[in-house]
């Protein structure tokens, strides 16, 4: 019998406190929480009011060091291929075309010697680890604050940063092939002159004249790469 009345009292008090709580929320819904980021001093002060963030119309600020969409400043890129090498998911595809001489300087003074015939980043594959931005010697590859880049076709997630036209690419390729051929010829002549051995075929010395050659091996912090280009075995497809 004592329990009976205790239950009634408990039911009344809990029901009333429940209603009080919901009425409190109803009353507080006059105000709306502002879309401020966690970095804001008042972030934890805002514990009342409507919490809905109506996304396309308003959004939370993105931190400056956020890792979202990749961007390559192609004018500053020396096409060193480090980013493509370090990428754990192979989302960066680079097709270099070697130039016959330095073709200009990046904004930090590093000479550029390779054209980027293709510099594609597939953001659909990207895992947003940011490794490519850390290895980039000229800091031309960065992660931007843009995060809303959804598309209707997954192919549209492949961002192309190279600026060369097909004609330009073919032209540069031919130039290099010619240059290489001349060099080989000169070398062969030189060798012939020096040793007098004419039996060796040229082909052995000359590299395949595809013109496509990855170039790596610049020391990381120094932005003045040595003129020496380490010879590597010919490109074995995409790594």
């Amino acid at each position, binding site marked *: 019998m004592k329990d*009976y009345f205790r*239950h*009634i009292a408990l*039911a009344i008090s809990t*029901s009333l406190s*429940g*209603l009080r*709580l*919901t*009425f409190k*929320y*109803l009353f*507080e*819904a006059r105000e709306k929480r502002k879309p401020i980021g966690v970095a804001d001093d008042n972030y934890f002060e805002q514990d009342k*009011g*409507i*919490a*809905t963030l*109506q996304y396309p119309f308003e959004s939370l600020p993105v931190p400056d060091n956020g890792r979202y969409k990749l961007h390559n400043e192609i004018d500053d890129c020396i096409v060193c291929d480090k980013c493509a090498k370090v990428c754990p998911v192979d989302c960066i595809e680079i097709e270099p075309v070697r130039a016959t001489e330095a073709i200009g300087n990046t904004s930090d003074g590093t000479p550029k010697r390779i054209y980027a015939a293709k510099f594609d980043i597939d953001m659909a594959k990207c895992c947003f680890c940011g490794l490519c931005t850390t290895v980039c010697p000229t800091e031309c590859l960065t992660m931007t604050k843009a995060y809303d880049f959804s598309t209707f076709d997954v192919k549209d997630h492949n961002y192309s940063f190279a600026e060369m036209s097909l004609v330009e690419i073919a032209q540069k390729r031919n130039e290099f092939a010619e240059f290489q051929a001349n060099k080989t010829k000169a070398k062969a002549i030189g060798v012939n002159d020096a040793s007098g051995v004419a039996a060796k075929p040229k082909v052995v010395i000359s590299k395949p004249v595809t013109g496509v050659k990855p170039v790596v091996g610049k020391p990381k912090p120094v932005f003045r790469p040595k003129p020496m280009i380490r010879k590597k075995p010919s490109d074995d497809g995409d790594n």
Partner: protein
Amino acid sequence: MITFLIFLPFLLFFVVIAVYGERKISAFVQTRVGPIEVGPFGLFQTIADLLKMLQKEDIRPFAIDKFLFLIAPLIVFASVFTGYSVLPITQGIAGSEISTGVFFLLGVISLDVLGILMAGWGSNNKFSVLGAMRSVAQIVSYEIPLGLSILAVVMLAGTLNLQEISVLQGVQSESPAYFLGIHSLEVTDIGGILTWNIFQMPILFVAFVIFFISSLAEANRVPFDLPESESELIGGYHTEYSGFRWGLFMLAEYGMMLLVSFLAAILFFGSWQSPLPNVGSFTLGDWTNGVVWGIFWLFLKAMFFIVLQMMVRWTYPRLRVDQLMTLSWKYLIPISIFVLFIVGIWKLALV
């Protein structure tokens, strides 16, 4: 006829507003914003939903009992809407002024359960049948505390006619009204809030709480929405319905909400009487009473209870079946009998 002309359009209008209000209230309670896209502040959201619903195909499953299935929504809605026929609208205007008003109302809205049972059984679906069974058990159980709490009011008023009960709660009353039922505190000429039933007989507040709880159960509202319980029974008795037939169930549910809110206002909170009393030469009560004022006060009070019902819906979780039965049989019924006894004693001893 007047009921038909006033309450039917009002009910349709009310459902549109109430669905919107319910969504907004639930949103605000849960710190969301609710509908905002369709029209200003999302006001046309319900109309858009209504248009969508009316365009829907009237699906009739293969294995249904066709007659029961098709007629059930009509019975549910008709029985609820017939309840409106005895409601007073304002001073001097009432629907049917039959002398058995409340009794008729209680009787006719009980037929609602018949329609629900037909819908559940006719659907030939285990969830529907479970919902219908729960509904019958629930409504039959909760009719008793509902009836007993109304009986307490009827004992005080001495009449079953709702219009007479309304008149007794104000300055137009011919019999004397006593504040708190005490003889020396006659307030017949003062009127206002002091002559409302709940102040004439304060124990009726307990009766009102019981009435409110049971009316939630009658209207299948949360926390007593076991017949529907969309999380377990996928909508219960109206699982198999679509389009306008489902809309009729919806209309009946909101109609029931509105009906019990009107009833609460009429029986306990002064019906169409103004809450402002006559104070000396400031006859506020007389100034704020009249045909138009009456409509205003009655509908305002009903809307207050609607909002309360909605807040209750978004506050409490659904009861278990055994808890439902325990609440009715072990708590509400004994308390309402006790209240009835107190009201009788009070009236005999003090008035």
